[in-house]
């Protein structure tokens, strides 16, 4: 250790360190233009010059390369130093007047006029590029020439093979003098390209050391060996010098890890179709033809333009954007993907709407499509809204060619309208809605595993076991099973987990480790001893906020006993150090000034627990997201704000008290309400995993709607399969079936429900820990198309029944007509029933099979045979089924005349009214929810406008409710075919088991509590609480006063805010704590 004086203060540094290194560590700012942490200091810019008193005289030395020695005295910003630096900046600015970094510095030094002759250079000859190049091991460039003729160049100014176009020079150049383009023309013949970011679809570059994307798990950077210069030249290794914890090891080798597992779940996902092969779309030739994936990045706030909608060619804001649907889907002419990719229609609408949100209403968005397939939950509503309210144009036409318009960057499109008119329109930018496909790599994996694939190269699964592959124990989920959207993928994922859980059930808990429990120190009545840890977050915070000064400041706050700053507070070693310090310094309150509690609070609470402190004696100050990130251009103010935030956190934390978390035992029994396909699937899965399960079915028979269905789209006999399932359920030792049973009452909460059942007038109360709602839906009873007026006018289910019964009349018919969307996609029912298109086409094919001479017409609005169901549609057309489109404004007319059924509809191709005489009219009726409000109330779960249950999260929580312990599946969630119902049944079981698997659960300590003596018994809290946590005490000294069940309380604070007598406190967010924070900010009076 070397002790010396820095600006009058006695400081210490290590032998061999330079002044700048020590100063930097202590937060003393010294300007520099030629310094780079990873490079040998050169002392070229001279801006870091400081004054050194060696005991005899004062000298000027450069801080970057002057080694410290015992007893020296350094002044970093004396008048002389300041004047000199100012003059250097002034001279450099004269040399390079347009370089931003110099303009900034000039501003800082108050240089407002130029006294020197102006030049027009951009290079300040800092030599960083040269030293970097040297470090890279390439030595391609150097400082050539002497004096004023010095410049950065290759030897003899020729392009050299020594340059590997790594671009390091351009990266390190502080002025922008060296650019990647210049490297190519000046230094080498090689193209210096930034590495295209895979995540940003090549619209942005990435580094060889990179985190693939912000949410990557694990969120640690990796080194791309194919791009890293070290692996090419043996040089560089700059990253190791930046890594504060020595985590980088270039010698690391790939490891083959062998795991012994009981089951494999395949979730390899999909790859987006690459439209480069379509020369007609000009994708590769024209920058402004992009794929929808690229559009996603452009619209994303984390994307290359931070969500600013600009087109790639010239970064101008487009005024007209078109989307082309079915690029790489439903196409056998140009690619082999004849299936529908399921998700493109919806994402195109979403992109159009978001584009309008970002760019403003005058952005013209047009979507060219064949059939609009918005068959997901709430999708149709979104489509209607986009079309009617947002003004997104939908043009039913398949465009074949995109032609560039001169040099403008615009693109011209010719298309034929529905009326048959040829039109041409110019757009500024075109988005190709590319389809989903299985990658060659995934196909290879499947081959290696010996899995059967479908015609579309997806993993083959059965309707009744939708996540099982052809190999036992190997399951599949997500888009490898078939093109699908997020909610369905998440459902699949849970289902696959359940499937694996079922076969691995005996091994449950055999590999778990129990952490050691550290006894909690009692801190009651202790004077607060606060420890403040200020995090640098690498440069995330320290790059803006003067972290050491914040830590220093925290020392001055009342009750603060200890402060320090950490490079990364969340790193493993820092965590350990922190708990050591807490113990050593006897701290009883902790503040971490770092990032967001949303992601890191549990981690630091863990640290407290490890130090034997109650985890609620903790407070975070978010000096990153709320400070350094948002005020990066204002470091002084950001530092001030960080101090404010720390002061507020300290003032709050001193008032923190240890909180107890309520612990409750979980009843290990499950209840499934509804004995249909999904309910049975859920029950079977729960039971298979060892949990006692009750199925409550109001009918006398299990099976639900499936009892009405004939065959699945893939040709399986539903009745046979259903019978098997019912048999298995009934036989299962863990399943108790309650038929003819309804629910009278539900009490309790997660882990401890008490449900009163009524079976044929007999009541029974069942205790259970979780509930799965699988209450199903029904078929719509049509009120149009003369339904009921003629026995030959049927609903789809009625046709199925005839098919099941092998009704001979079906063979005799000459003509059959199907009318789609009966009751669906109507103003009063603005959703798509999802299954009807497939169902009708399938039935049409059955009829055709029974009687190949039969004329079949399907009158439709949009055919929605999503995924590989598209093959049926194709087959139907090939078989001669005639598809006639109608619009909601011009519905077909059914006329019963002379015992004939006549259907009048306008043919969209011929543009003429057709009259079809038919023997069989099938109405594809809607699926309507049961709208069981009573049940919804029992379990405190919501229904949507359509009457379906509202899941916790449309995408991430599709099979569970926001209410803890309650799950859902099947048609009660949304119309869906059997495979999806079964998948969701298992998904619900899977989610339920996450709770059941725990013997006890802890609720949060941040719950509301009533001061019962202050309670006025008004009941507002009881009525306002969305979780039914408050109740009136029935006995005891405070009978009649409100009390809060900490288990149900979510700590939302509604009751606290609405309690008129101020009797309710929210632990951890009490009034005095919040006020103290405000007072600490001097904002309150």
């Amino acid at each position, binding site marked *: 250790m070397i002790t010396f004086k820095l600006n009058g203060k006695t400081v210490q540094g290590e032998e061999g360190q330079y002044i700048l290194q020590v100063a930097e560590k202590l937060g003393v700012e010294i300007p520099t233009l030629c310094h780079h942490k990873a490079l040998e200091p050169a002392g070229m810019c*001279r801006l870091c010059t400081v004054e050194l008193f060696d005991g005899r005289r004062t000298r000027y030395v450069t801080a970057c390369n002057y080694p410290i020695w015992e007893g020296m005295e350094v002044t970093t910003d004396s008048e002389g130093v300041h*004047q*000199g630096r100012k003059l*250097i900046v002034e*001279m450099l600015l004269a040399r390079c007047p347009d370089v931003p970094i110099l303009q900034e510095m000039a501003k800082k030094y108050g240089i407002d006029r130029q006294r020197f002759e102006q030049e027009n250079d951009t290079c*300040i000859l800092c030599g960083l590029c040269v030293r970097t190049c040297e470090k890279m091991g390439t030595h391609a460039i150097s400082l050539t020439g*002497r*004096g004023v003729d*010095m410049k950065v160049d290759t030897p003899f100014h020729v392009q050299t093979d020594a340059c590997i176009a790594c671009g390091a020079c351009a990266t390190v150049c502080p002025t922008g003098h060296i650019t990647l383009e210049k490297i190519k023309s000046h230094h080498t013949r090689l193209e210096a390209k930034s590495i295209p970011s895979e995540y940003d679809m090549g619209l942005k570059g990435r580094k060889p050391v990179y985190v693939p994307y912000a949410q990557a798990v694990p969120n640690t950077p990796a080194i791309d060996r194919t791009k890293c210069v070290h692996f090419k030249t043996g040089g560089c290794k700059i990253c190791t010098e930046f890594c504060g914890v020595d985590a980088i090891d270039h010698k690391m080798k790939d490891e083959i890890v062998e795991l012994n597992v009981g089951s494999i779940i395949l979730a390899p996902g999909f790859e987006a179709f690459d439209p480069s092969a379509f020369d007609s779309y000009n994708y590769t030739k024209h920058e402004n033809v992009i794929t929808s994936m690229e559009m996603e990045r452009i619209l994303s706030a984390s994307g290359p333009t931070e969500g600013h909608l600009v087109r790639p060619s010239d970064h101008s804001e487009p005024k007209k954007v078109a989307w082309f649907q079915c690029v790489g889907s439903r196409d056998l002419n140009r690619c082999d993907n004849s299936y529908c990719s399921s998700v493109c229609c919806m994402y195109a609408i979403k992109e159009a709407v978001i584009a309008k949100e970002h760019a403003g209403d005058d952005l013209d968005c047009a979507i060219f499509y064949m059939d609009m397939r918005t068959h997901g939950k709430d999708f149709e509503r979104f489509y209607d809204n986009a079309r009617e309210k947002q003004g997104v144009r939908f043009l039913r036409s398949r465009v074949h060619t995109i032609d560039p318009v001169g040099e403008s960057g615009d693109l011209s499109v010719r298309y034929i309208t529905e009326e048959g008119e040829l039109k041409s329109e110019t757009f500024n930018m075109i988005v190709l809605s590319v389809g989903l496909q299985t990658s060659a790599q995934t196909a290879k994996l499947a081959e290696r595993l010996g899995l059967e694939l479908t015609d579309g190269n997806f993993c083959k699964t059965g309707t009744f076991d939708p996540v099982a592959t052809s190999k036992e124990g190997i399951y599949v989920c997500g888009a490898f099973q078939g093109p699908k959207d997020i909610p369905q993928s998440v459902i699949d994922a849970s289902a696959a987990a359940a499937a694996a859980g079922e076969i691995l059930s005996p091994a449950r808990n055999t590999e778990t480790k129990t952490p050691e429990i550290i006894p909690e120190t009692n801190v009651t009545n202790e004077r607060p001893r606060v420890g403040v840890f200020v995090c640098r977050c690498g440069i995330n915070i320290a790059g803006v906020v003067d972290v050491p000064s914040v830590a220093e400041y925290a020392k001055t706050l009342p009750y603060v006993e200890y402060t320090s700053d950490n490079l990364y507070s969340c790193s493993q070693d820092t965590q350990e150090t922190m708990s050591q310090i807490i113990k050593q310094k006897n701290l009883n309150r902790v503040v971490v000034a770092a990032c967001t509690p949303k992601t890191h609070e549990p981690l630091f609470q863990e640290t407290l627990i490890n130090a034997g402190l109650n985890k609620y004696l903790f407070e975070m100050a978010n000096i990153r997201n709320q400070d350094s990130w948002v005020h990066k251009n204002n470091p002084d103010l950001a530092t001030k704000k960080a101090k404010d935030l720390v002061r507020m956190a300290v003032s709050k934390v001193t008032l923190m008290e240890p909180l107890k978390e309520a612990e409750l035992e979980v009843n290990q029994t499950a209840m499934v309400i509804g004995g249909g396909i999904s309910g049975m699937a859920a029950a079977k899965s729960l039971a298979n995993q060892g949990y006692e399960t009750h199925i409550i079915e109001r009918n006398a028979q299990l099976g639900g709607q499936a009892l009405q269905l004939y065959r699945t789209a893939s040709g399986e006999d539903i009745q046979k399969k259903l019978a098997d399932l019912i048999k298995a359920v009934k036989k299962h030792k863990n399943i108790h079936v309650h038929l003819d049973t309804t629910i009278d009452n539900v009490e309790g909460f997660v882990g401890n429900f008490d449900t009163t059942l009524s079976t044929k007038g007999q009541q029974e109360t069942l205790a259970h820990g979780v509930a799965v709602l699988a209450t199903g839906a029904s078929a719509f009873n049509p009120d149009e198309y003369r339904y009921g007026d003629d026995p030959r006018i049927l609903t789809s289910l009625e046709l199925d029944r005839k098919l099941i019964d092998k009704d001979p009349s079906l063979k005799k018919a000459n003509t059959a007509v199907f009318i789609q969307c009966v009751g669906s996609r109507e103003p009063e029912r603005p959703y798509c029933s999802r299954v009807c298109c497939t169902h009708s086409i399938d039935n049409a094919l059955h009829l055709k099979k029974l009687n190949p001479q039969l004329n079949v017409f399907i009158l439709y609005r949009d055919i929605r045979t999503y995924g590989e169901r598209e093959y049926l549609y194709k087959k139907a057309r090939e078989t001669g089924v005639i598809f006639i489109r109608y619009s909601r404004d011009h519905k077909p007319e059914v006329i019963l005349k002379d015992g004939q059924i006549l259907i009048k509809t306008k043919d969209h191709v011929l543009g003429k009214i057709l009259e079809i005489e038919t023997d069989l009219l099938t109405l594809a009726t809607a699926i309507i929810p049961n709208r069981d409000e009573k049940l919804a109330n029992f379990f405190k779960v919501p229904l949507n406008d359509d009457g379906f249950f509202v899941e916790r999260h449309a995408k991430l929580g599709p099979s569970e409710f926001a209410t803890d312990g309650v799950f859902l599946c099947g048609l009660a969630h949304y119309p869906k075919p059997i495979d999806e119902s079964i998948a969701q049944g298992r998904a619900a079981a899977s989610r339920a088991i996450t709770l059941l698997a725990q013997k006890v659960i802890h609720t949060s300590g941040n719950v509301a509590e009533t001061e019962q003596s202050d309670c006025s018994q008004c009941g507002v809290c009881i009525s306002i609480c969305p979780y039914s946590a408050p109740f009136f005490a029935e006995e005891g000294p405070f009978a009649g006063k409100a009390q809060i069940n900490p288990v149900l309380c979510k700590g939302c604070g509604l009751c606290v805010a609405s309690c008129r007598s101020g009797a309710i406190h929210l632990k951890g967010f009490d009034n005095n704590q919040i006020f103290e924070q405000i007072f600490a900010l001097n904002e309150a009076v």
Partner: protein
Amino acid sequence: MKIQSVEDLEKISHEYRQRLYHPDAIKVNVGMASCGIAAGAQAAFEKARKAFPAGSGIQICQTGCIGFCEEEPLVEVLGYGKPRVVYKQITAKKITEAIQGYSDGEFNKKWILGQMKDPRSHFEDDIENPLADVEPLAGIPFIEDIPFYSKQLKIALRNCGYIDPDCIEEYIAKRGYQAFLQALQEMDPKDIVSVVNASGLRGRGGGGFPTGIKWATCAKQDGERYIICNADEGDPGAYMDRSILEGDPHSVLEGMLIAGWAVGSRQGFIYVRNEYPLAVKRLITAIKQAEKYGLVGKKIAGSNFSFQIKISTGAGAFVCGESTALMASLEGNVGRPRAKYIHTVEKGFRDRPSNLNNVETYANVPAILLKGAKWFASMGTDHSKGTKVFSLVGKIKNTGLVEVPMGISLRDIVFDVGGGVPKKKKFKAVQTGGPSGGCIPEMFLDLPVDYQKLTEVGSIMGSGGMIVMDQDTCMVDVARYFLEFLKEESCGQCNPCREGIKQMLAILNKICAGQGKKGDIELLEELGTMIQKFSLCGLGTSAPNPVLTTILYFRDEYEAHIKDKKCSAGVCKPLFHYEIDPEACTGCQVCARRCPQEAITGKKKATHVLDQEKCIKCGICYDGCKFDAIVVR
């Protein structure tokens, strides 16, 4: 033959002393350093050789610089029992006649610069004056009495002009290598360092760092270390080192050998600029000869001490005189300096401890060992001991190399040794220390030459350049000239030096062009001060000296340039014009005849008229007018 002892040296010495001082026939020493050759010595030498071939009884020899460069080519002639005479300005045309005349006893006295009283150096007091018995020539001054020589004291230049640089034996005859052999065989390296230290010898290259301390530091280091000789003399107009290398290369080799033994090095390098081809040639010869005698090489004189000397030729960058730049260049890298916060004696060439001294320093070392530290320290001032070689140039009568004791006044050098300013012009300033030295005005002429004193008045000792300026020198232009040089020679690495010199020069150019404006002087001072403090190496930190000292001492000239737009010295063309003083003009028509523009007209004996429109201010009339009738206005 490998020399093993001082006795071996003595043998050679004895034989060659004879030849040096008492030649059998007439011996002619032609001054064949670059200065002499430039003046025509080569042709003269060759002509003499032809005229007096071997066996003619007249021996034509070469020697180094005899010193009085103004009078080159200088030829010294001696004969047994005859006076030793130095002929001046002996071109090929005159040489045979001069020699023949000497031989015949007709001495062509007009051509004689002087005769010698005593040709011995200070280190030959063990022998008698070979001229003791010789009858001097009547009416011919003694060299030693000529003011140019009388105030000089030759230590570094002790053998220059006396011996044939290509003949090691002649060096040995002048007690060469004796100091080294004695040191090697009789002295502990530590004691050598002590002697050098006690002598007060300071680096003659410019920095003036005490040589003894440098050696001691280097000797303390571990492992392989290097002895480097800086022969990258780059100051314009300075050629002390060249003269030593050309005239007495062995003195440098001997100095390096002593240093090598003293600090424990096995390898020496001479970094010499390639623009000194003759010096390089003579060094190569010298090294070969020394190797032949076993004075350089392995196990020297039977000891365990081995020492190699290699020559590295530099491309002639001024900045390579800076130690770190020199070593970078020596390593084969671009000659650019680095920060010297870790000294080169600790980490220098190849990151090893390196002892770097310049030519003159090394040349002094054998002398110190021969005569002792006390003797050396007895000369000079408190801080500056011994002598210093100056290259006296500019507006001075006796240009040439002079070696004077430290502490002598500038006035003595300029007026006595140098003979003052020619053509009765007024002395204005003397610039010392090369391009980054300062200009010292008349008021400081009595300043003793001393490292400290020169620094106090804003200049430096430097390597010994000394440029005398007269009334016709514009001080602004002088500053501009030096900055122009430094702009080219700055390595360009650091901002203060590269950008600063450029900006200072831009300002000076404007001032000289009559576009100076108020505040320029202050801006120059501001820049100068910053460059001095903030630059990376010595080049930068001293670069502003010419500007700052001229501003300090000749601010009025700057002001006249800026405010009155006048250059009273008549140098900055846009700032003056010539006029004919009607009072002084005699109408001799010289100016009118010489004017290339025919701008001057006038009848004989009538006052002439100068047409300002036609005048290009070439100054021919001004220089040619004997009556001072052309005046600068």
